């Protein structure tokens, strides 16, 4: 067994030092009938066998590398620079722990500080934390934080909010019987959330661009929120959009949550991803999760530490702002490296390319065989109204080797108005050829 280093002689010597006859003497507190239970599992295998086994599972899937892929809906296919994936596999990053001993974790702490700085900059907010699990759980935490900060209970959820984000919020609210108001599905992007605010409202949660792709000016909503002491939470499920769109902070958001997967993190069938969480400075002490801060060491040199931990579970226990402990450190590193490689110019250009691809694709599809583009505005994803139910169309496209989009009915099941809607995204990964292939395949299946 290649990972285990004790030889039989080592074990004997160690048992002798301990002063017991055999290993089971060390397990004497386990009820005797439960010890050494017969557990039916295959025996150990070599690398080659394991590689074959998992390789065979991989071969049963359709890789987006082999099929034009237009799927988005909260997870986006982007190019990951070779340097990013290489760097995150360095032993010192990959096999380290949460930086509890700052003297020997300055590497992790400094990149977390850089990560927090980048997140604050691109969202237009004052402060950001060192990551949460993903965009959806970050959204749940934001609502809990808004309740603490406003001492009110009700959450108003936009009908353009990703149903997974909405689902996480709803699950959390149900645990403590908190009220929430989930607006009806808003495929058109013209809901009036301000009208839903009342005296009990703690926060309004809105996604931008919305699940259906609409880019909205949130300033009027922010004003309405402010007037009633309601916090505006803006969720961003495609973080590359921040390279081109006015940041939520500039539009008056109090809390911004985002899915950071698009930068540096592989799709990996849905996880692990990285939740971004940023807020106005005045809410700092209500924030969930770890925060890295600058300080000096004993010799006066600049260094970094985890800080304000009096908010956290290991200090505050049942009074903590969240139960989170392990977060998404390595994905945050991948994000930071990718964004460092891009820089201002690259990030902006990447966003421009994504937008241009989507505009181009929308132009190719709008009007084709009764297809209607629903959106007035969008970034790299838009909604098409199809003449047929979208789920069947997507299946038919898959049979032709094309991953043609996400049927809205998968996210809004049972919602009649969702049935014919297809979410289509385009990124820098999509070639001219991909787009033509989608167009001709749609022509055939519709």
């Amino acid at each position, binding site marked *: 067994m290649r990972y285990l280093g004790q030889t039989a002689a080592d074990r004997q010597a160690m048992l002798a030092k301990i002063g017991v006859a055999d290993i089971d003497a060390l*397990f004497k507190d386990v009820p005797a*009938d439960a010890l050494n239970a017969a557990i039916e599992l295959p025996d150990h295998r070599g690398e080659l066998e394991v590689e074959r086994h998992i390789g065979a599972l991989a071969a049963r899937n359709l890789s987006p590398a082999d099929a034009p892929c237009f799927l988005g809906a909260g997870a986006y296919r982007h190019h990951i620079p070779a340097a990013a994936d290489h760097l995150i596999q360095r032993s010192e990053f990959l096999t380290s722990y949460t930086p509890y001993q700052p003297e020997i974790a300055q590497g992790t702490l400094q990149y977390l500080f850089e990560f927090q700085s980048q997140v604050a900059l691109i969202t237009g907010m004052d402060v950001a934390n060192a990551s949460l699990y993903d965009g959806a759980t970050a959204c749940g935490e934001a609502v809990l934080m808004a309740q603490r900060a406003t001492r009110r209970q009700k959450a108003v959820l936009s009908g353009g909010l990703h149903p997974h984000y909405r689902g996480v919020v709803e699950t959390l609210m149900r645990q403590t019987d908190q009220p929430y108001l989930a607006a009806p599905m808003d495929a058109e992007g013209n809901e009036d959330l301000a009208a839903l605010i009342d005296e009990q409202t703690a926060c309004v949660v809105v996604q931008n661009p919305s699940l259906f792709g609409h880019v909205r000016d949130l300033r009027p909503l922010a004003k309405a929120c402010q007037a009633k002491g309601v916090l505006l939470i803006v969720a961003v499920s495609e973080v590359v959009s921040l390279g081109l769109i006015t940041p939520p902070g500039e539009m008056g958001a109090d809390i911004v949550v985002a899915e950071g997967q698009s930068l540096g993190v592989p799709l990996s069938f849905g996880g692990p991803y990285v939740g971004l969480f940023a807020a106005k400075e005045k809410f700092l002490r209500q924030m969930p999760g770890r925060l890295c801060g600058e300080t000096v060491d004993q010799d006066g040199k600049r260094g970094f530490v985890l800080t304000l931990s009096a908010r956290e579970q290991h200090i505050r226990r049942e009074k903590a702002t969240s139960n989170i402990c392990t977060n998404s450190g*390595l994905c945050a590193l991948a994000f930071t490296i990718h964004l460092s490689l891009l820089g201002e110019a690259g990030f902006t250009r990447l966003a421009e390319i994504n937008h241009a691809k989507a505009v181009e694709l929308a132009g190719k599809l709008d009007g084709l065989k009764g297809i209607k583009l629903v959106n007035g505005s969008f970034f790299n994803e838009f909604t098409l109204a199809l003449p047929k139910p979208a789920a069947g169309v997507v299946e038919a496209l898959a049979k032709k080797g094309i991953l043609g989009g996400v049927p809205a009915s998968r996210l809004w099941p049972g919602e009649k108005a969702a049935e014919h809607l297809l979410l289509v995204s385009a990124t820098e990964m999509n070639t001219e050829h991909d787009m033509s292939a989608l167009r001709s395949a749609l022509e055939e299946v519709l």
Partner: protein
Amino acid sequence: MLNKQGRQTTPNAGADNSGPAGGYATIGGHKGLEHEEPLIFEQGEPGRCGVDLPAPANVAERLGGLRRKGAIGLPGLSEPQVIRHFVRLSRKNYAIDMGVFPLGSCTMKHNPRLNEKLARLKGLGDLHPMQPESTVQGALALIDELAGWLKTLTGMPAVAMSPAAGAHGELCGLMSIRAALIARGDARKRILAPESAHGTNPATAAMCGYTVDPIPATADGRVDLEALRAKLGPDVAAIMLTNPNTCGLFERDIRQVADMIHSIGGFFYCDGANFNAIVGKVRPGDLGIDAMHINLHKTFSTPHGGGGPGSGPVVLSDALKDFVPLPYVIHDANGYRLVEQDESGKSFGRMKGFHGQMGMFIRALAYMLSHGGDGLKRVAEDAVLAANYVMASCDDVMSPAFAGPCMHEALFDDSFLKDTGVSTLDYAKALIDEGYHPMTVYFPLVVHGALLVEPTESESKDALDHFIMVLRGLAERAQSKQAADYFHGAPYLVPRRRLDETQAARKPVLRWKPAQDNKAAAE
């Protein structure tokens, strides 16, 4: 020389990390292999870029008039600059790949590189979560296969795969329990948890609206059954008990605990963070538990990555197996299906985006396949053996908190440092100079000045012997009165010495700001 905190800046007899080399300080600030590294924000130039992207096609913009006006303020760096920056940062970290990482409760074991390779396979690492079911049958089969291993290893009938980490698993377990209680028409109010519980336990209970009632421990570090009995009542939803517990001991009365909590209609949540001590050897399902999270990033070796990501599947008993989060995988005549909408009316809903930490599932399954049932049993045995070996090798100069044998962690209190002027923290910091990551300190809270050592099965006897020599040597050194100053100043041989945490918290600087902002803030 004493600095302003009254701490010695150079050891009596140690090397000096900050001082001159051969009489001179270095001219440029670096020290040999150790580089001072500024923030990326301090070395960028607007014109530089580390990726080459083609010019976008010229299209009529459709951003709804919301194109960003000003600059973001991100620095521009070339690829070599970025690589150098992060490589230099990496060298300021300690890691399992460098040496023993005995951080108790965290199970810092070897991370096989095979698993990294497999997680990146085409057809797994690049799968989109919203692909049609027909195109991801292998991925769903993989989740199902991992679920099978987890059920077999724990002897439990069901497992929820959604949770993203241990704490998230606790949340899943308590939400499942709450859903089951509500289905009975009996939501209940109180959760019992030992005083030694990890902070995530009470924090999670509070997120579910429960009050937390602490149970004291006996003198031998286990749950006090009489105290537990006294706390039972019809409003108790569950007990949250870690087993092996956070003191590194097996809760030998675990079945009585299960019977007691079940007798009042409550549930038994087991915190499975310490599953590594019994994996392949004892099935928690044989002990009467109802729910347990398994940190795949501990027992099943998915890399901790400097703080995550993790994965925390939760095994569930018959009584809880219908009260699961969405989505979940089932297998029927047509193959694998991902159930994303509640079909039974019993699911408590969604707790995360998409379908769980697939990248961690791949790694964990590769780890299990590599070890097999036989290897996993050896994992538990070698981990427990290693901890007991450390305990037995140090018990004359350090102070075990409880009588052994222990499980996979050796817990010491600080009585061996009594009257030395050396604290648990000082002792831990001195270990850093010796080339080791310190053990977990000051946890569990029930032990004074706790030092929790978890060597794991990954260490060879030679590595343990060296580590033991250092533990002993430092314990002995602490006894000599002259050494206190040395300990107070440690560590010395590091990129940064002790950091001022008070300043960090009092005047929080949590991000870089452009120069003009800094000026504005100062005015």
